[in-house]
């Protein structure tokens, strides 16, 4: 009893205490909340000092481990301790949309044009990042096409296989990786594809979503018979998952695909249990690095393939939204237009060339130097330099909106020939696949019913998909689950999404 009361009390405590403005931060300090992927930077560290010198203000940054970011965001929303600028990752999720619509965040629609480095550089992405036509933040840019396949190159060569061009090629590779002993140890202890437990919802760029797109299913939402339908309500969706289920049944995929922690995603690949990873293209670089750590002489073991054509030769590529979350300005601490202008000016300065270099590359002449447009690392083993590199890669890069992860101010100079080749290849593939990219026409739209009921709707499809793949439910039951999505409020979501998209123009 005590515990349940305590849990209640905890929930009410975190939602308590709103209304009063808290301590006013002095005008020469700017408070920020952002996700963190490693150890938190020291506020007195070299990089933060350099950033502060550039913007002429003190920075007070709350770094939150990425895994807890959405929780921490929701708790912060309910506190009287909101920062002046805040990275929002779930910018289409009900908690943020509701708060923004209630006026907890500044509506920046039309306000960003004054700031050359904050106004959307790409209008399409700018539109994708809006909520029903309203801009609530500055989008954090990402490459538009990131999906690609990393494959064990040495295994391919050993078995005499070609790089895949179609889904059938990939299936043949997965089959060979499983059955033809690619590691040559005489045991049948390998498999093809490695998929982790996916935390996101439907259409969250998971390997499943990408494969469905290859088979012709819409990416998120798509037009069928003159109106928009969710991607899972198409025959292509079922076909793609039936195809993948065959992989599961044959053991061409890791047996723990429903439970493997995504933090351990690379392990089976590097340890030689699995040979295919379908994820963002930059993962190929990470994998090469890991191979290099285990064997500095022989690490050229990763090949990169782009999106695949389906059996009939038609190709549909899966793009990403082009951004990852936004930087929003809560009204709690930034009360007047003047204060807003001050904050935006600082952000503008931060996102100008000099600022983005600091955020995404570091301090020139200290931890990197320019070499033909590439950022070449300097003195990597120096502990002080290591700190700067960590601060950049694990933390400050998250504050970049103009340049960011995968799109740094200067591309990093590849450490070796295999990595360089992968970078070149990655860019070529991305340009090529962009031509066949299937865009989501409803990215900038959030339906009213979804805001209210999304919480229960969101899990239906991804759960049903996993259960179908693992054989827990049949195809009929999968289709029934799709119907259930409609019955539990999805039909309203679909109707409203159609109306909103029609209203806002395509």
């Amino acid at each position, binding site marked *: *009893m005590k*515990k*349940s*009361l*305590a*849990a*209640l*009390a905890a*929930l*009410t*405590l975190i*939602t*308590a205490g*709103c*209304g009063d403005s808290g301590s006013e931060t002095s005008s020469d300090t700017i408070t920020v909340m952002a996700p963190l992927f490693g150890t938190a930077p020291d506020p007195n560290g070299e990089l933060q000092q350099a950033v502060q010198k550039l913007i002429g203000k003190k920075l007070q940054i709350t770094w939150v481990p990425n895994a807890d970011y*959405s*929780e921490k965001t*929701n*708790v912060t*929303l*309910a*506190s009287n301790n909101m920062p002046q600028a805040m990275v929002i990752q779930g910018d289409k*999720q*009900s*908690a*943020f949309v*509701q*708060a923004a619509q*209630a*006026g*907890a965040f500044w509506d920046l629609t039309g306000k960003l044009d004054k700031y050359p480095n904050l106004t959307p550089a790409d209008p399409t992405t700018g539109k994708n990042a809006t909520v029903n036509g309203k801009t609530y933040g500055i989008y954090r840019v990402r490459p538009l096409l990131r999906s690609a396949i990393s494959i064990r190159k040495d295994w391919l060569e050993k078995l005499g296989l070609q790089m895949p061009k179609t889904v059938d090629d990939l299936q043949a590779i997965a089959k060979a990786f499983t059955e033809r002993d690619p590691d040559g140890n005489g045991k049948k202890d390998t498999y093809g594809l490695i998929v982790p*437990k*996916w935390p996101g919802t439907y259409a969250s760029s998971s390997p499943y979503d990408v494969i469905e797109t290859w088979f012709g299913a819409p990416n998120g939402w798509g037009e069928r018979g003159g109106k928009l339908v969710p991607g899972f309500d198409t025959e292509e969706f079922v076909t793609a998952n039936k195809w993948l289920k065959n992989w599961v049944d044959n*053991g061409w995929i*890791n*047996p*723990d695909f*429903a*439970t*493997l*922690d995504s933090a351990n995603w690379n392990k*089976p690949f590097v340890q030689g*249990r699995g040979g295919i990873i379908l994820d963002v293209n930059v993962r190929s670089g990470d994998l090469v690095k890991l191979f290099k750590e285990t064997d500095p002489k022989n690490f050229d073991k990763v090949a990169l393939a782009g999106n695949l054509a389906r059996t009939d030769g038609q190709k549909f590529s899966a793009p990403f939204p082009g951004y990852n979350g936004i930087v929003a300005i809560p*009204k*709690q601490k930034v009360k007047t237009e003047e204060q807003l202008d001050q904050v935006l000016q600082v952000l503008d300065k931060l996102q100008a060339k000099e600022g983005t270099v600091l955020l995404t590359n570091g301090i020139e002449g200290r931890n990197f130097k320019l070499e033909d447009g590439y950022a070449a690392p300097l003195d990597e083993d120096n502990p002080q330099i290591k700190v700067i590199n960590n601060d950049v890669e694990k933390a400050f890069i998250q504050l970049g909106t103009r340049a960011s992860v995968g799109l740094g101010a200067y591309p990093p100079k590849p450490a070796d020939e295999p990595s360089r080749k992968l970078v070149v290849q990655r860019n070529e593939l991305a340009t090529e696949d962009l031509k066949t990219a299937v865009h989501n026409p409803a990215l900038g739209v959030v339906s009213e019913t979804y805001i209210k009921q*999304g*919480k*229960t709707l969101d*899990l239906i499809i*991804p*759960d049903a998909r*996993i*259960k179908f793949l*693992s054989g*827990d439910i049949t195809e009929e039951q999968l289709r029934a689950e799709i119907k259930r999505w409609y019955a*539990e409020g999805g039909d309203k979501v679909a109707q409203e999404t159609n109306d909103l998209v029609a209203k806002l123009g395509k």
Partner: protein
Amino acid sequence: MATDLESPPVAPISPAPPAAKARRIARHGWLYLMLLPGLAYFLIFRYWPMYGLSIAFQDYLPFLGYSDSPWVGLKHFEELFTGSDFTRLMTNTMILALLTVVFVFPAPIIVALLLNELRRRTLKNSIQSIIYIPHFLSWTIVASVTYLLFSADFGVIAGYINDLVGGPRADYVAQEAWFRPIIVLQLLWKQTGWGTIIYLAALAGVDTQLYEAARVDGAGRWRQFWHVTLPGIRPAIVIMGILTCGHLLDSGFEQIWLMTTSLNRSVADVFDTYVYYIGITQGSYSYSTAVGLFKGVVGVLLIYGSNLLAKRFDERGLF
């Protein structure tokens, strides 16, 4: 258990005149003073936050605060009771509760009784210390170890079972059918040893003269156990039983959250994880508070119910 510490009556119970009452308070001034911190603790940290429960009856938006968020009456409760989640949550929670009562609750009693029969003191003490250890490991560790042992890809135990049974490797940590057994096994492994403490204390309190008398009357070991030991610890069992009933709907948030996957969610979802998922990760503050409040109310009812039941069976009960 606070009633055990009740001080003996020092003043006549008959209604005293106000003056006498004041005198009585003055006489025990220090005791009352010492009561204050505890009282303050409960008021500040247990009762005051409860005013936040009002958001269960609002469409609470943090930006608007308590005063400006619109009142919606019982909307969230209606949503809960009519929604498709409710029966699933209730069923899962109740089945886990039932399994807890049947398997986890008696385990420490049995272990304590077995330990009590051990002759060698050192042996008894060392076993006791060893079985306490799992209690101090966090659920995160227990869950990771479970995954390591039972994972379909590299799990050691999953491998053994597979070698024995043959066929394709089963993913025990992901399958619906294995979710509940694994939860119960984890609970048994982690909590049984620690749970014996109270029963061992109760066993130590059983008057040895009773055993001597029983032996004189010709009772064997089994008879002694049945007529002396068991009645001796019956109050402890009853009190622990009442407390367990109060916790029936607490399914152990951390443990279940850590063991939930897409595949077993339909049997794993319980009120605790649901409140967390809806409230903290999805930001539906009002709805999740309503769910939590419902759970709290049921918990209070269960405690009163079981207490009443205990009194019916001529036991002292908790209060």
